């Protein structure tokens, strides 16, 4: 089966189009800043999880074409993560560095979130073919950070929730499944053939 990269690219832009549409029509709800921050944060996590699901899905379904979109999906996680960080630092904190640094130092969930973003940076920077050929085996080692970043994302989410943990627990469970599917115990599983 063929996979149209351009189609996936446009699909991945839909969340951004949706939130921009809401913003233009002034229909972001009572707390638009919170809405934008939560929305971009959630989509960062979604794209991290979607990216992690590619390898097991390819194996389970025997659909090799999936590999062609993995890098793009990972970069979209970085893209939405950047929007998330910018909306926190910009529209929420007005780039008042004093407040932001205080937040990072004093509030672990901010520190965890920022750490997750910082760990995405080398992955985004080395996502090109040149870096793959240059780094060789080390590239694969480096990109194991893709397992760590979503864990930080889930923790970041769980830590800020006031009381109802259902949603972060759901994403945490999904992440555990995606990681477990990589264990030797499950690595022989196939759906097709």
């Amino acid at each position, binding site marked *: 089966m063929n996979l149209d990269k351009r189609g996936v690219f446009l699909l991945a832009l839909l969340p951004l189009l949706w939130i921009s549409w809401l913003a233009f029509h*002034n229909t972001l709800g009572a707390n638009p800043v919170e809405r934008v921050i939560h929305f971009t944060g959630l989509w960062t996590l979604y794209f991290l999880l979607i990216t992690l699901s590619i390898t097991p899905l390819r194996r389970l379904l025997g659909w090799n074409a999936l590999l062609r979109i993995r890098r793009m999906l990972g970069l979209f996680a970085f893209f939405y993560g950047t929007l998330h960080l910018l909306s926190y630092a910009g529209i929420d904190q007005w780039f008042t560095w004093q*407040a932001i640094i*205080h937040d990072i130092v004093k509030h672990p969930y901010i520190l965890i979130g920022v750490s997750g973003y910082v760990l995405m940076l080398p992955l985004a920077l080395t996502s090109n073919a040149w870096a793959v050929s240059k780094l060789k085996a080390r590239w694969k080692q480096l990109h194991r950070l893709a397992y760590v970043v979503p864990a930080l994302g889930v923790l970041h989410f769980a830590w800020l929730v006031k009381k109802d943990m259902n949603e972060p627990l759901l994403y945490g469970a999904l992440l555990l499944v995606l990681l477990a599917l990589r264990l030797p115990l499950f690595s022989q599983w196939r759906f097709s053939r």
Partner: protein
Amino acid sequence: MRKSPLPSEITPQAIYLERRKILAQMGLGLAGALGAGAAPSALASTGQKLTGYQSTAYGHDEKLTTYDNITTYNNFYEFGTDKEDPASHAGSLKTRPWTLTFEGALKRPRQMGVDDLMRLFPLEERIYRMRCVEAWSMVIPWVGFPLQKLIQWAEPTAQAKYVEFVSLADPAQMPGLRRAVLDWPYTEGLRMDEAQHPLTLMAVGLYGEILPNQNGAPLRLVVPWKYGFKGIKSIVKIRFRDTMPVTSWMKANSAEYGFYSNVNPAVDHPRWSQATERRIGGGLFEARRKTLPFNGYAEEVASLYNGMDLKKYF
């Protein structure tokens, strides 16, 4: 009593416009295209008008939060934990007939229907700031009567040192109760002097209308110098006691939620800052504002806490 906002609460128009210009130049887009005000009302108010209430001078210089925002952005976990849940699900709450039970350290226990209570005490409108522990705030025109008057009427004995409030907990009317998010029924409490403070209000209305269900109909507590969760909703029981009640949020996490829960920018929530707040209705490009000690009511209430270490008694 201070009835106008501190000058620091109001962002001067010029600064505000300048900030928007800066944002636009930073290329965050949208800035120019977006108004900061609320969208035109999509939600027609359906409430029944309240009549014969007195207007008061409280908070008249404040810009009111819109009816839409006050009634669609709520924390009322009995109807779900999302802010939109109460507006969607509180229709199932039956607010008449509604009986309030008074018990504990009283000359005699009493019961009274909410309509009778509303006839017993003259209603007044009070515009109060409401600061949520989640670091957002609103300005709300409540209609109600001072709790002080209700307490006088209930005739507590000298043993009464605290007032405990209990919300309705009926799973048939409140879908949120299916999950043990909090220890139901929702319970709150005040020290006797806090409860008798003239600012402490029992609200039965909003914007001159009967209180919408999602805002705690038919009767709720409003303590403007404390975090919003102290304002217990849909009250069915008031108990006078000689010991400090343990509230639902204290049970949920005593390290994060204390009995007093006075608005205090100097004491952070263990997980987030309380130094600033976001005023609801300010739009996408309005800056946070500084949170004031006791939510700006320090002049009226700070003396209640003389000699207390507010970092310890948070």
